[in-house]
């Protein structure tokens, strides 16, 4: 099963190393990971997507992360209503014959073309992982020259915050 963990950490040197090391040490596999500044100065938010056998493993990962001194809060948002997004940049091969067809695929996915050359198009797409997966599958037959994907960034939906533990940092 897939688990999604959202955590806030002190933005200090070595913190990322400490956290990824923890995954290595405990033999947990990270499917994707994003890090970036949060709404508070000096505090970063990380989102981990992990592929694990069962919920007990996610609980264990959560506890181990919580033990880290520079980890402020860990939220297991696997079973919550969340907004999750990732970004992919895809350079697709095009010919004069396929160009129009590719545009027609891009359209319904609300992806956007951000670079055009004689024989390629670069498309930016954001959305949930599944949507990006589906788009890549559709576009594959045309030929993908290069692909770059971010991990998932996720936060719980606004309506839940009142029920979940406060998301702010003490």
């Amino acid at each position, binding site marked *: 099963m897939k688990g999604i963990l959202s955590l806030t*950490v*002190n933005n200090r*040197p*070595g913190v990322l*190393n*400490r956290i990824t*090391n*923890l995954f*290595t*040490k405990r033999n947990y596999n990270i499917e994707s990971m994003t890090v970036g500044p949060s709404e508070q100065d000096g505090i970063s938010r990380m989102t981990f997507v992990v592929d694990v056998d069962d919920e*007990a493993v996610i*609980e*264990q990962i959560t*506890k*181990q992360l*919580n*033990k*880290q*001194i*520079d*980890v*402020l*809060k860990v939220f297991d948002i696997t079973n919550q209503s969340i907004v999750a997004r990732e970004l992919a940049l895809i350079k697709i091969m095009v010919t004069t014959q396929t160009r129009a067809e590719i545009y027609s695929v891009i359209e319904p996915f609300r992806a956007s073309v951000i670079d055009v050359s004689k024989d390629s198009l670069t498309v930016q797409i954001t959305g949930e992982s599944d949507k990006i997966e589906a788009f890549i599958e559709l576009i594959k037959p045309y030929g993908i020259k290069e692909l770059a994907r971010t991990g998932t960034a996720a936060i719980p939906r606004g309506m839940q915050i009142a029920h979940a533990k406060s998301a702010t*940092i*003490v």
Partner: protein
Amino acid sequence: MTQKSVVADRKSGKTHYSGAEFLLDALKKENVEVIFGYPGGSVLPIYDKLYSSELFHILTRHEQGAIHAAEGYARITGKPGVVIVTSGPGATNIVTGLADAMIDSLPLVVISGQVATSVIGSDAFQEADVLGITTPITKHNYQVRKPEDLPRIIKEAFYIASSGRPGPVLIDIPKDMAIIEGESTDKEPEMDLPGYQPTTKPNYLQIRKLVEAVSGAKRPVILAGAGVLHAKASHLLKEYVEQQGIPVVHTLLGLGGFPAEHPLFTGMGGMHGCYAANMALSKCDLLINIGARFDDRLTGNLAKFAQHATVAHIDIDPAEIGKNVPTKIPVVGSAKEALAELIAQNGKKPDIDVWTTQLTAWNEEFPLRYTHEEGVLKPQRVIQMLHEKTNGEAIVTTDVGQHQMWAAQYYPFNKPNSWVTSGGLGTMGFGLPSALGAQLANPKATVLSISGDGGFQMCLQELSVIAEMNLPIKIIIVNNGALGMVRQWQELFHDNRFSHSIFQSHPDFVKLADAYGIPGYKVTTEEEASNCLDVALKTDGPVLIDFRVKQKENVFPMVAQGKGLDEMEGV
């Protein structure tokens, strides 16, 4: 000349101090009694200030000796052991000790030198990525970027190391950070640890659940680990056990937390535990784990472990609860607070006479045993003699292997903080230096450093420090000319193929002791052993005794790997 305190200096108008001055001042404020260390290029500025300081420093002969000594000190006092080593090789030499302290929850504050910030990352002379290397084996680590941060960092380090589940904290100090000056403020440094709030007070509802589970139990057992010792809760454990009449099993590291002579003590459990203790763990209907981490050497095959039991687990580290064994009643908190609360609840005492009678019967029917052979010195007998001659009052430190298991089996401990061993990491070379630390922690105690002939040779250079300080440690070598436990496993599981486990030659340990200025004896019979121990214990200073014991003696009983605790061999 004495080290001037930064605080005292303020009156004289001095406002700027070097990192080394900040460091030593902060260590003094933490009431550090002893520093174990080894100088080198990157820590020279620190050692230069140390030269004129009141801080007591011991120059061990290897950094590994320094950190194991600090572990011994920490195990006995509960206070963080302090270590200073230089960058690169100095720091990499303490890696084993850090991993050892991490897994056995021993508080340490380790200062490592680092090359100057201007050359970090350039593969400079004696540079190693110490933060990277030590991250998985420390509770926390720091690299100093501003000298004036040191007072706060040291304060945090001592707090982190000794609170919650104790563990090692490393502080990496680049050489220039020790030299350049930072401005001192008059204020006490404020800790900045929003992400660290260990829970010591247990949840009331969980305690109630446990009280109810106890009152209805037919076959309850307490599994007491080192968490009881770390929390200094031995007296409370005894009080609770006597209030409820529940039998106790100890883990290897927990020994001494509950008196071995107590009628409710069932024994040590695990791979080389006694039959009654392992049957107690196998047949119980309520297992109350207090401060143990369900190590695989304790549980045996997890699928067969405590199959019929409701598991309750009291631990200060929430991540330990449910990690290896599914837990019905989780109690996050210190053993001390949890036991105090359990005692206060004074729940209905369970009716378990049948169960306790059964355990006593098992202990009588299947005691620890070995066969006497005429004219042969048995290692178990050596340990028994040590126990008799010291009235069971000594602090015992060990290496790892057969002698360690025999010490755990045949030296019953009645008091806390008298057993120093490397349980989790299983570190050979631990015994001698940890004895050094233990003796400094408790100068009046009789300290027995028990090693095998293998482990002894891994850190024997610390004989030099023991001799220099004339520490009255009795150094016991249980010498079977082999890596005993390896040899045993090869006999049992590898068809007697003794691949590289039998030593072809040894130094003469008596002459070796003599070279260090320590009286040494070799004994080969029980009578010699007895006489020699009498002499050794009367000697005011270190003594080394080389006990030549039977080579092909095995540690029994035993639970083979993959077997359940109720499938013991050699009972």
